[in-house]
Structures are given as structure tokens and as C-alpha cells.
């Protein structure tokens, strides 16, 4: 069910915003917008189809591990 909502939502966004972007001739804005919309669409579809997306917090946890360890060491 969620996939339908995702497609619907993305469709509405594009239908509402693309015409005004086209009209104002904001080329760069339009390409950034389309890129973001594409990323959002892919992420949301994957999530709604229950395909596992890697959790960004895992990456964050690994990246800041040294600092965490230092803090833990200080307050041992």
C-alpha cells in the first residue's frame, strides 16, 4: 500500500513544482530538484517494498568511534 502512496506523493510534488520551475527558467534548480526527487523516490520505494536500506547511523557510529572511545576512556 505504501508504494502507491509514495508514487502518488512524488507525482503530486512533480506536478505542482515542475511547471513553476520551468516557467521561471531555473535550470540548475530544476536539475537539483529532479535529482533530489529521484533520490527520495528510490529511497521511499525501497523502504515501502521492505528492502533493507543501510542505516546511516551505523556509518556515523563507526566514523566517530575514536572519539567515543576517548570519551569512554576518560570517564571510565
Amino acid at each position, binding site marked *: 500500500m505504501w508504494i502507491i502512496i509514495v508514487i502518488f506523493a512524488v507525482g503530486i510534488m512533480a506536478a505542482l513544482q515542475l511547471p513553476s520551475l520551468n516557467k521561471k527558467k531555473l535550470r540548475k534548480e530544476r536539475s537539483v530538484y529532479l535529482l533530489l526527487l529521484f533520490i*527520495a523516490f528510490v529511497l521511499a520505494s525501497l523502504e515501502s517494498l521492505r528492502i533493507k536500506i543501510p542505516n546511516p547511523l551505523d556509518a556515523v557510529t563507526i*566514523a566517530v568511534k575514536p572519539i*567515543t572511545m576517548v570519551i569512554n576512556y576518560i570517564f571510565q
Partner: protein
Amino acid sequence: MLENGQISRQQLFILVFLFSLGSAILIVPSAMALTSKQDSWISALLGVLLGMLLLVLYHSLGKSFPNQNLVQYSEIIAGKFVGRLISFLYLTFFLLLSALVLRNIGDFMTTIVMPETPIQAIFILFMVIIVMGAGLGLEVIGRAAEIFLPWILLLLFILIVFIMPQMEMNRLYPIFEASVKEMIKGSLTILGIPYLELVIFLMILPYVRQTNKRGNAFLWGGFLGGLVLSIITLLCILVLGWDFTSRHSFPSYTLAKKIQVGEFLQRIEVMMAVIWFLTIFFKLVLCFYAAGLGLAQLLRMQTYRPLLPPLALITVVLALIVYPNNVYFRSFASQTWFSYALIFGFIIPITLLAIHKLKKN
């Protein structure tokens, strides 16, 4: 200019105050009680003092560039490439913070207030007003904050006054049982949420009218926000006891549940949920606004508004995947978040400030 609106110092003060309460008021008491037990309120006050130092740092960094925000001056200080990289990292930070805050309110709603509603529906509904607010710009957010502030203060006042009969002073004893080390460790919680997050105001400070006098408003907002957090923490311990506080996800809500005045004024915790809800709204809308505005500035775009709906969808997905379960959330909030926020809220700003000062001399 991407943002033409300007806010007054008074509005800045209110926004800082509400931002520092948002989601912290739900999470902080429990995380604090875990480390410094019945002395958490001392930890909290200690954290507020340390937090003020952070605010002074942000203020002095902002003062060096009164008319530019973080994304703009990071390029000036650190050069084009490094500066842009820093800006990009900040944007991910803001977006991730938005997702985490959104997840907080979602968890709160689905576990306690409305268990039958799917969390996605709450996310979507909430993001609709966030996109609306961020799209309308800073001026409107500031005005809305001025309108909501009296209500939030009134509800906080009701909460504090009506919970007083339930306090038991002996829950505080023994005072100073925790060692200094433990207390400092406890204070790191309040430092991580909200003080290190206040780095977002580096994106907002240049849009304050009378740039030279904004420091006071900024510092006072942060200070009073921290004070309210400390009071809530103290109340949690006095009413619930540290043990119960630390085991609960949202102890301040449980606190509101305890309100009982006579026969009729009871179970008004949903009214109190308005406080968390409104403060989280302002926190989230500012994070999201900063992310959208920053992205548009980084890419030299003419407007940030069209980017908001796709960003909102990304935020919703992020909010869905960030915490697989409650255990993960608690360990992340208590362990990793501080280090992560420390990089963005302390290490990078102080490095930027140092480089700037060195360059100037």
C-alpha cells in the same frame, strides 16, 4: 539573497529557547538519570554552564561574519574545496538531526499517545507542516514562535505547579553521591542534546536584525532553555525517583500523567504533550530550514523552496530506518550522538574560528 526575511532579537531569543527544549525535554531526563542518578539535576546545571561556553563560541564565530551564515563563511575561512566539503557535512548533519527529531516525535506518538496509528502517517502529516513552515521562511517561523510561546509557558507553569504536591524530597538524598567524573559524564547528555545542536543557529544568526546586539538574546535563550530542562529533570527525580526515570523512555510524559488535582483534573497528560509537540515542531522546522537553505546556498541556487518536499520525503525515509529498535536508540543517544555532535558542534566551529583569527592577525 535566498532569505529576505529578518527576525527580531526577541524572536531569536524565543526560537533558541524553544529549540533547546525540543525533544530534549523528552529524552534528557532519562539519559541523565542513567549516569548521575539522583544528582542528575546537578549534572544538568553543570551542563548548562558548559553549554553557555559553547554558545559563546557560536556567538563569537557568528560575530566575525555578521551578515553571512555557516555555509557562506566556511568557504571564506577554509577555502573553496574544504569549505564546501564542511558545508556539505553540515547539511547531512542537519538532515540527519531532522530525521532523528522526527523519529522522536513519531516514537512518542505511537508508543504512548496513539498506539494504533501507523508511524508513517504521523511522519507524513508532521512533515507537511514542517515543509509549510520552512517554505514560508524564517520571518513567519519567528512570528509563530511568538504566538505559541505564551501557551507553552502556561502549560509548563501548570505542569510544574500541579506536580508539586507529588514531590518527595527524600528522593534527592543522598546528594553528591555521584563522583565528579560521573557528574560531568551526566552533563555530557545535556551538552549533546540540545547545546551542541544549537550550532544550527549559525545558519540563522545573520538574519537577525541589529546584528551587533543579538548575542544577549542568543545566550539568554539557551540559558533559560537549559534551566527549564534542569527543572524538569529535577521534577522527574523528585516525583518518579531516579530509578524509574532512567528506565522510562519518556519520563517527563509519565510526570505529566501523575498530575491529579481533585477528582476532575486528572489524566491531562495529552494537554501536556502539546509542550513537547510544539517545541519539537520548532526544533524540526529550524533544522529542516537550515538543511534546505544551506543546500540551496551551497549549490548557488536562487531559491530553496522547491527542494523542501523531496528533502521532506528523504527525511521521512531516514526517520523510518534510523532506529531499528529502542535499544539501538538508547545506545546511540547515550554513546554515539555526543561524539557525532561534538565534531559538528565544537571541533569544526572552534577550528574555523581559530583559523579565522590566525588569518586576521
